[in-house]
């Protein structure tokens, strides 16, 4: 087994960049901050590719099975001899695949930001945060210990918070970052408790050990966790469900998705990095990472499936109605992640039934490229028109030819039009769904059509529709164009990667083939949806308005994001604050503290009440004296003899 220790440098380089830029960025390095960040990430990317090459093509496979290699393990915090947080590096197909995705997309974003963020006052800080995020994400991917995952999970959350609130003097950005952090934190609580459950019964935090113990139905750990139950479900289901809650929070699954659209307040390259390719798929990654254990609990997998499917559909519907281009993309992301989730949910652990697993990760892989492309493209557009709203755009195809083409490719990819990348991965998912669960297949198919529709609604609105009123001032520097071109190339090309040869649930390569007959239905539906979008939005007209009027209430509801935000607001502002927070604050002031005050007041009152004893009259003193004598006499002569 060869040495993978150099992988350590992949996350470490961004960390070093972060520390350097964080401490000295403002004063000394502001000029070269971008270059420094990009260079270090470039190195990381190279290393990732080296690692991928080494793992997938040289020594990852032993006897036809990809091995899980723990390249490093250091006990960082020992809770008890069994339970500890180890900092480790796990090298297996999904981690290596994710390394490549994260470093590549991050690199693209770094490069793009050189142009996009140029001239910002806190340029160095921006790169510092970007490096921090990349570090956290890479750490998350490489974690070999479930608590380590949690740690980096939190770090990812906070760096996302920092990046979203980059424009800190914009109240909406601050609010969005708060929302993102708090919602994911809430979900993380589930994750944490899930970890505690699994760790307690599994007797370890090590992912490998946990999988080993929980997948053998004869191990004592497995017996104890399945025999213990709470509210009718076994602790295994509970633990996994709670872990999935954590994943759902980060991956913006319904109903924990509300932070994602708001998070678009951050700089657009950040959205491309965090909210398209990396952080939001962490949930998918987490479930995939623990998949062998998930596969032992039917109930947990069902939850994953239905939550995924519901999110896919739900987000797609909303995406059709939004007018802010980044929000459309955000809902689209949510929808696509829903795809990945339910694909995992319907999968089996290995073999032919493991198609869903493979498909899910394949979709994750392809999606990363075309979605970040979409975001970067949107970024370029926003950079140009200084607005997120569709109504401010239109006819930009002539002003921004490169962006236009790249965006179109990405749209085709996400719509699943062959031969673009999305087609292949989506196809696998649909196939898996078709075999496992027809309802899910139906939803998936419908969602696919909706996806094509809203993506092209977006595309036409930006690049066609009315003629532009914006005076020409170029498409931006080459640093912004280059990533678009590279990513467009990827969006075309990555579909041809023989993904099933590398990443499967059990490490054994899976033979897949495209069933062209089967793919007719989705492709035709997508094309129809594209045509519909073209009819509505290619030129300025009022056809769409009529349709909207036809949908009536449904449209309004979808436009208002089905009022989920309002429900949350209601719960927090109208229930938690006034019915929990304020009563407690009130009780603290008036009851608990009041009780202490009351003691003082009572003492003072009594003191006031009995002041009459000291009447100043010497005869009364004598009377009290005599009273004391009598009392003592009676007490001690007759009562307490």
């Amino acid at each position, binding site marked *: 087994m060869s040495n993978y220790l150099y992988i350590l440098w992949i996350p470490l380089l961004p960390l070093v960049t972060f520390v350097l830029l964080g401490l000295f960025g403002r004063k000394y390095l502001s000029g070269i901050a971008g270059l420094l960040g990009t260079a270090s990430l470039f190195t990381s990317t190279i290393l990732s590719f080296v690692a991928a090459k080494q793992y997938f093509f040289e020594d990852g496979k032993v006897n036809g099975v990809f091995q899980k290699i723990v390249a490093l393990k250091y006990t960082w915090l020992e809770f008890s001899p069994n339970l500890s947080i180890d900092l480790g590096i796990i090298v297996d197909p999904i981690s290596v695949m994710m390394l490549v995705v994260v470093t590549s997309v991050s690199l693209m974003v770094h490069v793009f930001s050189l142009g996009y963020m140029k001239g910002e006052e806190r340029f160095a800080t921006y790169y510092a945060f970007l490096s921090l995020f990349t570090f956290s994400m890479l750490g998350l991917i490489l974690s070999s210990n479930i608590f380590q995952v949690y740690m980096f999970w939190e770090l990812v959350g906070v760096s996302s918070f920092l990046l979203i609130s980059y424009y800190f003097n914009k109240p909406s950005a601050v609010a969005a970052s708060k929302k993102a952090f708090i919602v994911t934190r809430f979900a993380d609580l589930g994750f944490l408790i899930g970890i505690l459950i699994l760790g307690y019964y599994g007797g370890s935090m090590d992912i490998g050990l946990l999988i080993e113990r929980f997948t053998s139905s004869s191990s004592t750990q497995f017996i104890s966790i399945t025999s213990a139950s709470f509210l009718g479900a076994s602790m295994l289901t509970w633990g996994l469900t709670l872990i999935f809650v954590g994943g759902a929070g980060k991956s913006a699954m319904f109903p924990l998705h509300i932070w994602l659209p708001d998070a678009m307040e951050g700089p657009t390259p950040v959205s491309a990095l965090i909210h398209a390719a990396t952080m939001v798929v962490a949930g998918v990654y987490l479930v995939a990472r623990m998949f062998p254990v998930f596969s032992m609990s039917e109930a947990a997998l069902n939850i994953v499936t239905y939550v995924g499917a519901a999110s896919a559909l739900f987000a797609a519907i909303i995406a059709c109605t939004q007018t802010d281009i980044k929000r459309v993309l955000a809902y689209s992301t949510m929808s696509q992640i829903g795809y990945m989730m339910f694909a995992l949910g319907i999968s089996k652990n290995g073999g032919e039934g493991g198609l869903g697993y493979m498909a899910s990760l394949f979709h994750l892989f392809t999606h990363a490229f075309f979605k970040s492309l979409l975001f970067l493209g949107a970024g370029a557009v926003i950079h140009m028109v200084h607005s997120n709203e569709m109504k401010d755009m239109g006819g930009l195809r002539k002003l921004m030819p490169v962006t236009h083409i790249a965006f179109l490719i990405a749209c085709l990819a996400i719509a699943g039009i062959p031969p673009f990348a999305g087609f292949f991965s989506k196809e696998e998912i649909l196939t898996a769904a078709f075999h496992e669960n027809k309802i899910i297949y139906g939803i998936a198919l419908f969602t696919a059509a909706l996806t094509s529709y809203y993506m092209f609604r977006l595309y036409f609105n930006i690049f066609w529709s009315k003629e532009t009123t914006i005076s020409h001032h170029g498409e931006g520097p080459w640093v912004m164009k280059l990533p678009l071109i590279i990513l467009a190339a990827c969006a075309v090309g990555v579909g041809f990667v023989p993904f099933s040869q590398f990443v499967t649930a059990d490490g054994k390569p899976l033979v897949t083939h495209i069933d062209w007959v089967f793919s007719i239905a989705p492709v035709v539906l997508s094309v129809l949806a594209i045509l519909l979008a073209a009819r509505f939005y290619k030129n300025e007209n009022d056809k769409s308005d009529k349709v909207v009027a036809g949908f009536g209430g449904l449209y309004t509801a979808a436009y208002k994001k089905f009022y989920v935000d309002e429900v949350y607001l209601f719960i927090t502002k109208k229930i938690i604050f006034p019915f929990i927070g304020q009563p407690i604050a009130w009780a603290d002031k008036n009851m608990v503290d009041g009780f202490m005050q009351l003691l003082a007041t009572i003492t003072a009152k009594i003191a006031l009440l009995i002041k009459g004893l000291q009447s100043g009259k010497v*005869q009364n003193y004598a009377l009290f004296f005599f009273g004391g004598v*009598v009392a003592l006499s009676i007490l001690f002569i007759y009562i307490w003899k």
Partner: protein
Amino acid sequence: MNISSILFYAISALILGAGVLAVTSVKIFRAAIWLLFSLIGIAALYFWMQVEFIAAIQIVVYVGGIVVLIIFSIFLTQNSGKEMNSPTMGKKIFSAMAALFGIAFVGNLIAQYEGFAYPSAKPFDPNVAEIGTQMLSTTSHGFILPFEVVSMLLLAAMVGCIVIAMRPKNDTENISLNNNETK
């Protein structure tokens, strides 16, 4: 019932009767006189108990000293014929009840105590010579130390009385100065 008993009860009646009047009489001078009678009654009781020396002391110190002092102070501070402020009726009743309770309580304790029923058969002969010797004796049952101590106390009491009762010089001067100014 013989003459001695009758005498005892008569003396007792005098003591208590005069005592009650001394604490209830509304005129202060009369109260002082009743006190005098009560004290004389006590002296008589001492005589009756054949402790003549104490009886003599009682008369000399109390009747001749303290009561006279009291009467002087009454003259100094009071219009002798004037009726004194009387306490409220509630206070009177309460105090009377307290006193009666005390008498009953202590009387009960005394009555219950067996030791008092068996007086010593030995004779009691306190002659003046014996008292004098013991008073200044340092040996067993000698009271020289208390005697000396009490003398110190009397000295201090005297000094205290003089300081307090003498009108302070400054005070007088101030008053006379004031008088001059007013003139």
